Each structure stands twice: as C-alpha cells, then as structure tokens.
C-alpha cells in the first residue's frame, strides 16, 4: 500500500500495528525542525508547496521505492505551513518483510524527496522576518 499526504497541521503518526502478521519490519522516520537554519536562530519554519505537484511527486517516488526494494507499504505525511521548532515536518513509515529493504527504501525515498518534491522552507527569524531558507539575506 502507498499513502502520501500533505497536511496543514500537526502530523498524526501512522498506526503501528501489523494486521497481516507477515510484515516483520517497521521503520519510522520523523524529521523535526531544528532550532537553527544555516547558523541562524529561528522561531519556526514555514513550508511552501507547489500544490498538486508536490503530492504527485511524492507518490511517484513512493512508487519507485516500492518497485525498487519490494517493500510492502510506504506511508508518508509531509507538513506544510508554519512548523515550530521541535515539531515534525516529515513522517515516513515503511513496512517490509525484512529490515534491509526497509532501510534501503527509507534512504532512497528521503534522498529523492529532497531532490525532487517541490516544497520549500521559509525561515521565520526571531525578529519575525521571513526569508527563503537558503537565500542569503542582505
């Protein structure tokens, strides 16, 4: 099963239960907002997406991961909008028979996500200013 969702508020983790009794390995990744971006202290990040395209790209990558590593399920929630320091921006859960393919699929999925999914971070600085995260602000 593949499920990808872009959500506008706190991410609820996926249910951690093996109903089929044959998916021996569950791997969960939670990516959280750290207190600094490129050395600058931040209050929060604001995630911007290219609507429809972001979810579509996520789904394409999830499908690629499933084909490549023969995992059973890949579930992903990515948050957009304002995300405070310490909160989860990305939650991925992968179910597979063995851990090896799960770890490889997780690595592949996140690397590709970071290359291709049209989502961007804006840093909200402690003084309230909002700048694109990579952009050196004059």
């Amino acid at each position, binding site marked *: 099963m593949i499920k990808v969702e872009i959500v506008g508020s706190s991410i609820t983790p996926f249910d951690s239960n093996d109903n089929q009794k044959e998916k021996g390995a569950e791997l969960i990744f939670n990516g959280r907002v750290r207190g600094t971006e490129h050395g600058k202290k931040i209050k929060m990040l604001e995630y911007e997406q*290219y609507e429809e*395209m*972001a979810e579509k790209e996520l789904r394409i990558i999830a499908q690629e991961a499933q084909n490549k590593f023969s995992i059973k399920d890949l579930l992903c929630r990515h948050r957009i909008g304002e995300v405070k320091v310490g909160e989860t921006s990305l939650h991925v859960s992968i179910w597979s028979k063995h851990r090896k393919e799960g770890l490889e699929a997780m690595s592949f999925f996140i690397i590709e996500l970071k290359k291709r*999914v*049209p989502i*961007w*971070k804006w840093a909200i600085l402690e003084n309230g200013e909002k700048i*694109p995260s*990579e952009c050196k602000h004059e």
Partner: protein
Amino acid sequence: MIKIRLKCFSQVKYALGTNEIIFELEDETFTDDLEKLVRKKAEGKLDNVTLSTAVNKKYISKNIELVDGDEVAFIPPVQGG
C-alpha cells in the same frame, strides 16, 4: 499570442515579489525564452540560483515550445523533508 501562467515559489517568489504572473507571449516561445525573461525581471537576484522547469506540474528536461494556457514554474532547489 499565447497566455502563460507563471507560478513563483521560494526564491523566485522572493525575487519577483509575487506568487503568480500572467504573460502574454508571442507564438513559438520556448521554456528557455521564458526563463530568460524571468531572470531578467529578477534583476540579478536569481543569477546564482539553479532553476528546474515544470510545465503543467511536471518536470521537463528539454527546452519545449509553450502552448496557450500552459502553467509554468521555474523551480529553485527544493527543500522538503
């Protein structure tokens, strides 16, 4: 003439100061032509930014001719995760 909707994100949005621009362009305008136009409009602010191209919400890797009604985005390095 063709009408093209340009979607702006992240550094492109920051450089142009807007989410979206509607362009009226001559027939036989290609994606590369539009990119040049956008970079010029940004007055140097996108000079060091690599941009990928999406047409109608799909990445394209070639320089293609735009048709009336296309939605185009020049996508700065993405930062999901």
